C-alpha cells in the first residue's frame, strides 16, 4: 500500500485491517503518535486525514490509502500547527507530555475550523483527549493564545 504521510509517499506491507496507529508506530517507526486506549476513547493517537482529526487506533490502514495523512511530526509545517506548537511551549503546557501530540493535533484541527473558538468550542473539540497530568487549563489558555486571543495562565 502507498500512503501519503506528511507530504511524503511511503510504501507499507500490512494487513488491510491493521490500524493506522500500528502502521505508523510499529512498521514505520513514527512514534510521535501515541497509543492510549485502542478504542478511540482517549485521543492520544489523533492524526489528521485530509485535515480532519481522526483516531488512528481504530482506523484501518486501507481506509487512508490515497488520502493525506498528517502526524505530529509534520503538523508544524502548517501555519496553524506551528502556532499551536509555539503556544504550547510558551504556556509550558506539557507535564509528562505523552498525550500532548494528540492534544496538539485536535487543537490544530479546531483552529482551522474555528479560528477564534469559544470556550464551548474548546470543550467540544478537546473533550475527546484525556490528559491524566491535568493540563486542561493550560491547554485552554494555549489554544486561546494560538488563536490570537488573550491566553491567560491560571
Amino acid at each position, binding site marked *: 500500500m502507498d500512503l501519503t504521510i506528511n507530504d511524503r509517499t511511503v510504501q507499507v506491507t*500490512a*494487513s488491510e485491517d*491493521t*490500524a493506522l*496507529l*500500528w*502502521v505508523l*508506530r*510499529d*512498521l514505520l*517507526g*513514527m*512514534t*510521535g*503518535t*501515541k*497509543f*492510549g*486506549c*485502542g*478504542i478511540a*476513547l*482517549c485521543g*492520544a493517537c489523533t492524526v489528521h486525514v485530509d485535515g480532519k482529526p481522526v483516531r488512528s487506533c481504530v482506523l484501518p490502514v486501507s481506509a487512508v490509502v490515497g488520502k493525506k495523512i498528517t502526524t*505530529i*511530526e509534520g503538523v*508544524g509545517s502548517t501555519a496553524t500547527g506551528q502556532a499551536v*506548537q509555539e503556544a*504550547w*511551549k510558551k504556556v*509550558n503546557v*506539557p*507535564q*509528562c*507530555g*505523552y*498525550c*500532548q*501530540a494528540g492534544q*496538539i493535533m485536535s487543537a490544530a484541527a479546531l483552529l482551522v475550523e474555528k479560528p477564534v473558538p469559544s*470556550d464551548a468550542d*474548546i*470543550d*467540544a473539540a*478537546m*473533550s*475527546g*483527549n*484525556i*490528559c*491524566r*497530568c*491535568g*493540563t*486542561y*487549563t*493550560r*491547554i*485552554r489558555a494555549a489554544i486561546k493564545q494560538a488563536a490570537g486571543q488573550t491566553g491567560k495562565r*491560571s
Partner: protein
Amino acid sequence: MSAVLPRAAESGLSRRDFIAKLTAAGGLVVIGCKTRILAAEEAEKYGAEGMPHGTVDNPLVFIAIADDGLVTIAVHRSEMGQGVRTGMPLIVADELEADWSKIRIQQAPADEAKYGNQDTDGSRSTRHFIDPMRRCGAAARAMLEKAAAATWNVPVTEVHAQNHEVVHEKTGRKLGYGALARKAAKLPAPAHDAVTLKPAEKFRFIGKEGTALLDGDDIVTGKAQYGIDPWFEGMFFAVIARSPVLGGKVKHFDGAEAVKEPGVVKVLEMPATVADAQFHTLAGIAVIASNTGAAIKARSALKIEWDDGENGEYDSDVYRAQMEKAARTAGKVVREDGDFNSAIAKAARKVEAEYYLPHIAHATMEPPAAVARIVDGKCEVWAPTQAPQVTREDISKHLGIPFENVTVHVTLLGGGFGRKSKPDFATEAAVLSKAMDGRPVKVTWTRDDDLHHDFFHTVSVEHLQAGLDASGKVTSWLHRSVAPSIGSIFGPDPKHELDFELGLGLINLPYDIPNLRMENPEATAHTRIGWFRSVSSVPHAFAVQSFVAELAAATGKDHRDFLLDLIGSPRLIDPRSQHDSWNQGESPKRYPVDTGRLRRVIETVTREAGWGSKRGLGLAAHYSFVSYAAVVAEVEVDKTGYLRIPRVDIAFDCGPVVNPDRVRSQLEGAVVMGISLATLGEITFKRGRSQQDNFHQYRVTRMDTAPREIRVHLLPATDWNMPLGGAGEPGLPPVAPALCNAIFAATGRRIRRMPIRDQAGAAL
C-alpha cells in the same frame, strides 16, 4: 557544606530502604518501632542520606563541558511530568554561572553507585537533591576558575565566573567554559565541604519565573522518547494475557488459533517468576508479533484456562461490608493521647460518620511498556521507570545474569503517579527478549491490561467519632482506618497499615484535641496494592476533612473558623509525640509539624477564594510530604442536579521553591486528578477480576468536566535556610474533601462514599 543551605540530611527511611529491611526481616515492623528510633537516634540517617546509595555530588559525574562550551548535565531522577529534567539542571546551572541557552541534558542510566539514589517517588527529588546539585555546580565553577587562574598565572582570588566564562577583572581577560573545560577536568574536584555556594540573593534561575521546559520542543514535535517508543529494525512486539486474578496460574492453554493470525511469530507461556512477592511479573501467555496490533488481535484468539487461586472470590462489595464491620469494632491502637473512652462518655454531643474510598487505578496515559534486547549475554532495557536501580536488580535476578550485565536506559515516563515504581513490565520485556534469542522485544500493556493488573490504590473504610462539649469544642476524637496495606506486595501481608501509611494523615493529626485515639483494624489484600500519588493521604484526608466540615455544620459554626480552632495556636509539633516515627523519612527536628504554616495556607486560600461572600464553596487542608496545602472548591449544582466546578483555589507552602512554574503545574494537575478520583474513579472486583476495561468504564476528568479555572497561591519561603517540602503529591489529598464540602454547601447533601457520580443530584 554551605553556610547558605544547611545539609537537609540528618537522615530517614526511604520507601525502598524500608522495604529492603522489611523483606530481610521476613515480616514486619522492625523499622520505625519507637524504641529503636530513640536508641539509635544519633545513628539514624534522614532525608537523602537515608535513601539507598544516598547522594553523589561529584561534578565529574554530573557535568560535562564540550570544547564549544555546551554543558551537558546528567539528570539521574526520572521525568514523569514533574519537571525534574528542567529543575535539576536549573540548580546546577545557577551555581555553575552558566548560560542557560548552552545547557543540554542527558538522562542517567540506572546506576546508583555512580549517581546516588534514583527512586523517583515520595515528592523528594528537589528537596533531597537541591543540595548535591548545587554543590556539583559550585564545584565545577571553582574548577573552571582555578583552571583560568592557572592559565593566566594569577591568584584564583582575582578571577570569577560569570555567564559561561571566567573573567580576570584586573586585566579584563576572559576565557569561555569551552576553552577551559579540558584543563578544569584534570583538576581534583574540591572536597565536599570546601565548596562555596552562592548566596540566595544572587540566584539567577533558582526560584525565578520564565524557565521554559527543556523537553518542550521535543514534546510538541513528537520527538520525545517514552518507554513505549524505542524502535529497532526487525524488533518484535508483544502483548501478554495475564492471570485475571492475583496469584492465579495458567492451568491449560491453547495457542493454535492465535498463532495462525497474520504477523504472529510466537505464543509462549511466561516463565515462572523467581520471587514470590507480588512486585514481580504475573503468570500469563505472551503473544509475539510483527506489530502490536497483530499481537492484540491474536491474543483475543488464545484459549486459556486459569487456576484462579486464593483470590478468586474477591468481590469489592462483599469486601466493603467486611471492612465496615471491622471499622465498627475496636482494633489495633496506633495512637492514643488522653483517654478517649471516658471523654466521649462525658461528651455533651457525639458525632459519628464513616467514609469509603474504593480502589482506584493510576491509568497513566502511557500504559506500562518497555523494550529489551540481549547481546552477548548483556541485556539492555529501555523503560519508563520511577525505580531505575530496582528495575536493573530485578532484571538481573530474573535473567540470572550479573547486575553489571544489565543496562537500564531511563526514558521519559508518560505519567507515573507511583505505578511505574514497580518495574514488572520492564522485566517482562527482558524475559521475552531472552525467549526470542535476544532480539529486541517491546512489551505494551493495553489499557485493559493496565486497568486489570494495576498496583491499585488501596480501598478503605474510615470510621470517625467525635465528642463535643457544651460549647461545641471537640474534646475527643476516634479515627479507625481499615485498608489493605502496600506491605502486602513485598512479602507476607502485614494486614495492618505500615508506619508510612499511618504517617500519611492518620496518626499525625495536628489538631489540638486532648483525647485522641487512632485504631487500625486488620485488612487483608486480595489484589496488588501500590503507591498512588499521595498514597494513604488520599483516604485519610478525605475522611478527616469531610468529618471536620460535618462537625462544623453540626455546631453551626463557620467551617474555616472551626478548622482553625481545631488546629489551635501556631506551634511546632514533634512528630514523635504523635507516634509518627516515620515523618516522611525526614528528621523530626528539622521537619516538625508547623501548625502556623497549616493555618496560613487555610487563611490564604479562603481569603483568595472569597470565603464568606460566595455560595457553594468547600474547604479542606492537609499536611503531607512535609508540605502544607489548602483547597477551596467552588461548585454549582443546577436545578437538574448537574455539578459544575467553575473554580478551584489552592494555597501551598512547600518552603523555598526552585521552579515556581513547575510547582504550580503540579498543583494544577493535583486539582484535576483529585476531582477525577472524587467524581468518577472506581475499580470494582467480581470473582477476583477488575471489572473496568477502558476509559468508558474507568472514567476520568476531561476538558469539559475539569474546573474552568485553577488559581494557585504559592507561599514561597524567602529564607533558603528553611528545609524544602515536596510538591508532586501534597496538593492532591485536600481536593476531594474540598469538593464534597462544596457540594454540601451548595446542596446540603453530604457525600461519604467516593466516587461522587450521581450523589450530587444528577449523573456526572
